[in-house]
């Protein structure tokens, strides 16, 4: 019996949430300590798992565990990771760890950075969310995937509605939750159809996704059910035209939740759409890929243009996420080696990048009490770490070579060349737009003179904040310089998908 590493990674946050809720509410420091310890441990486990996979044979699903859950209905708790999901598990660990670091904050009444209001409940909900996300990435059972999916979505509502930005939190929380529930219900119907059809075809009653890969769904079944399943999940991936819950949600959420939301939760949508939609209904994917490709192409360019005109820093990042997640969908829709591999790396790269962006935006907002770009300035001098971090994030965002964004975007574009070259040309416009707004916003926020209003209000960030920034930046540079730390693994995952697509 091997060490059940995936279950430990998944259930550790749940256990920690329970422990924290049992602690007295006024022991804020102890609660934070438990949170940080749990997050660090989970990150170490996820990192160890990632390295084991990378240094091992990198074939198929590994670290498989299976426990009966409801055998009568063919539901079991089956965990395992492949080259696509292992990086995302690591990503979740990273975002969880850095999210806790930057939420620690500062009790200084002038700053009130981080989470000062009811940290016990905050961290408990955040960890429920994290556990759910881990669960989705490692589940090999369709029912369990839904189970964890809903667990991940629900705490989001509370986190935004309670700790969010006063002006829009109720509206945004409501909008986000409704969008995501509607999406997942539609996908669930599709999943039940698959479950039932499999039973009719083969007589096997099972939610096991590896089993379902050979369930022999007919072409017409696949054509009909692919769209609901794919788009049901893709809503969470922020696919155009179902994206507009996402920027509102980003803006209203507290910093650590924005990091989770853009960094990990949106990947959940992309991953589940790929795992359930493309991998279980490959013929449907081939039939409809043109539609996804069109929507994704629009998202890429449209998101960049809308981000360009934003004056609120968080909205700017929110819409740039729509554009970047559009690239993920674009990569998936190519259904070829380069595009899928790029999409896999882009999910990781974008997760790290937006987590960094939101962390820095939060640090600035806590001190300046504004996110309006024209009202900011001179932050490079006041908070040099945020400045350098934001610049590195910006370079990743514009796909500058040497950083992870390039490693991801370049193969995506190559994949699109293989399918529809005109779309590659059109989508490439977004690169210029992104470069322009990122550079202009960096200049306005970080250079020039500090506005008089802010004089004396900008207290330095904490050591924990700095650790988070340095950690995230080094990951992006590491992948950018040495793509071999991630791409071979994703490639193996892609090979599996291509096999299901008929070796195309």
């Amino acid at each position: 019996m091997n060490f059940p590493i995936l279950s430990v990674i998944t259930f550790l946050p749940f256990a920690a949430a329970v422990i924290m809720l049992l602690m007295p509410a006024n022991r804020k420091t102890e609660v934070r300590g438990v949170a940080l310890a749990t997050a660090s441990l989970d990150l170490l486990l996820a990192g160890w798992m990632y390295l084991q996979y990378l240094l091992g044979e990198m074939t198929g699903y590994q670290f498989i565990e299976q426990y009966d859950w409801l055998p009568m209905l063919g539901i079991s708790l089956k965990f395992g990771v492949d080259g696509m999901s292992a990086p995302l598990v690591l990503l979740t660990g990273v975002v969880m760890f850095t999210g806790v670091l930057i939420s620690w904050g500062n009790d200084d009444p002038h700053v009130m950075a981080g989470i000062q209001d009811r940290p016990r409940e905050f961290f408990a909900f955040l960890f429920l969310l994290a556990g759910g996300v881990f669960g989705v990435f490692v589940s090999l059972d369709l029912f369990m995937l839904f189970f964890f999916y809903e667990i991940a979505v629900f705490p989001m509502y509370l986190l935004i509605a309670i700790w969010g930005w006063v002006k829009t939190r109720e509206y945004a929380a409501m909008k986000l939750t409704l969008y995501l529930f509607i999406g997942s219900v539609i996908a669930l119907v599709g999943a039940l159809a698959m479950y039932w059809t499999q039973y009719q075809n083969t007589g096997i009653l099972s939610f096991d996704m590896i089993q379902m890969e050979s369930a022999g769904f007919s072409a017409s079944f696949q054509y009909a059910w692919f769209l609901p399943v794919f788009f049901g999940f893709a809503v969470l991936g922020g696919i155009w035209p179902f994206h507009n819950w996402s920027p509102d949600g980003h803006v209203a959420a507290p910093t650590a939740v924005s990091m989770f939301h853009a960094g990990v939760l949106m990947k959940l949508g992309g991953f589940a759409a790929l795992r359930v939609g493309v991998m279980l209904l490959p013929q449907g994917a081939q039939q409809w890929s043109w539609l996804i490709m069109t929507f994704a192409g629009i998202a890429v360019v449209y998101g960049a243009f809308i981000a360009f005109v934003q004056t609120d820093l968080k909205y700017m990042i929110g819409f740039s996420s729509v554009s970047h997640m559009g690239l993920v969908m674009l990569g998936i829709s190519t259904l070829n080696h380069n595009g899928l591999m790029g999409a896999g790396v882009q999910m990781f790269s974008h997760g790290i990048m937006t987590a960094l962006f939101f962390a820095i935006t939060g640090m600035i907002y806590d001190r300046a009490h504004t996110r309006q770009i024209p009202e900011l300035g001179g932050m490079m001098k006041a908070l040099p770490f945020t400045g350098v971090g934001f610049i590195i994030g910006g370079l990743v965002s514009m796909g500058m070579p040497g950083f992870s964004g390039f490693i991801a975007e370049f193969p995506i574009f190559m994949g699109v060349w293989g399918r529809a070259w005109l779309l590659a040309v059109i989508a490439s416009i977004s690169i210029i737009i992104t470069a322009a707004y990122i550079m202009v916003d960096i200049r306005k926020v970080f250079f020039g003179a500090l506005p008089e209003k802010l004089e004396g209000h900008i207290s330095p960030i904490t050591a924990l904040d700095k650790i988070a920034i340095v950690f995230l930046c080094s990951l992006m540079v590491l992948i950018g310089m040495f793509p071999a730390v991630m791409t071979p693994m994703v490639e193996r995952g892609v090979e599996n998908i291509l096999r299901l697509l008929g070796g195309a």
Partner: protein
Amino acid sequence: MDFLNTHLLSLILFLPALAALVMLFLPSGETKLLRWYAFGASLIPFALTLALWSGFDANGTGFQFVEQYVWYDAIGSTLHLGVDGISITMVLLTTLLTPLAILASFSLTDRVKPYMMLFLFLETGLLGVFMALDLLMFFIFWEVELVPMYFLISQWGGANRDYASLKFLVYSMGGSLGLLLAIQMLGVLFGTYDLVALYERWNALDAGAMLLGMPVHTVKTVAFWAFTVAFAIKVPIWPFHTWLPDAHTEAPTAGSMLLAGVLLKLGAYGFIRLVLPLYPVEAKIFAGALALLAVGAIVFGAFAAFGQTDFKRLVAYSSINHMGFVVLGIAAAGLAAGTKDAHIAMNGAVLQMFNHGISAAGMFFLVGVIYERAHTRNLDDFGGLFPLIPVYGGIMLFMSMASLGLPGLNGFVSEFMVVRGAYPVLTIYTVVAMLGLLFTGAYILKGIMKILHGPENEHWAHGEHKLTDINTREILVAAPLMAIALVIGIWPAWILEVINKAVVALF
């Protein structure tokens, strides 16, 4: 020693970036330490380049000092480095100008640490373009080098720096968009980015075949223009040049030195390394168009330079004028590929790249020297300064003559070769370009006259505005440039031998 020999290129390439990272841990208050550290760090690649030059076999064919490492296996890109006679000349130019530019920035006091770090990163970016034998690597360094230059202009530049730096970035990135797409297409078609393999396989494509639903020659023509526009913006040739005067005028002195000295060469190098070998047919068909733009750059650049009252803008437009000759040489070489004329024109173009790097860096440095003292660059504010600052005057006279193409100095040799090579094949264009050369003389003499001669402007002679002559450190920056200009002018064979072998092998 063996390690050194087999890794010489990667050492030269990555040492500056490593040195910049180490700099992160130096105290930012110790400006003196930072300056000397950066200067020392940039001398090591220069010393290694000298070793490279001496170890380079001028009679050898193909690329030398080749290194290849796995980089991005999934899409078939490797870190493939190597130099031939053309690129080693550019490597020498880069590693020579970087220490001089750093030495020229010793007077800077504002945020010395990030400034010096950016310079070292910039050096790595520039060298990478010249050394890359992998198309994707070429593109990577081509883009990477933009970032430090953007920040150098936007943070340490003049009053209008925001506008100029963004224009520089957007122009450059916009220009390279077509290049990016064309590179992706090549990668998808052949599954490799290795230049040597691409030269063969891309040219071996049957002209009648279909690619992406279009005839091969259509695809090649579009890709040719995508490459050409990217490089034309970088050179820059008329009418893609408008970013250059702004960027130059606002950039800090040392930034201008590298911008004119090396960055512009990237564009011309792209033509030589990528466009001509990959598109020999198209280069022949469109040679006339390219030559027309080059002549436009020569003539309009000269006229525009003549019309300037800002000394730095004058020098900036002179760069457009001089780089026009490089492109004229390239166009002629593309048209007459395989003949002796092509070889002469191409030799001239490469040497002109080197020479312009030397003289433009020198001129921008001299502009910076006087601006630092007078805080103005307006030519009308000067006059009769020769007696006040005789040493500066002498150096400026020398540099201007090198730039003008006075026989005996470097510019003459290369411009003569370009004209000699282009005349038989592009006669009309060459004749018009020669007329443009007349105006080169005019604007350079105008600059000298307005600053050094004429009635003495009393303002600079007394009191707080009294100009001091060029100091020892500044002379040390100018001296190597002057020495090289003179050596090439008198005895160009040492460098032409190296260039010629590569040119004959390629074209």
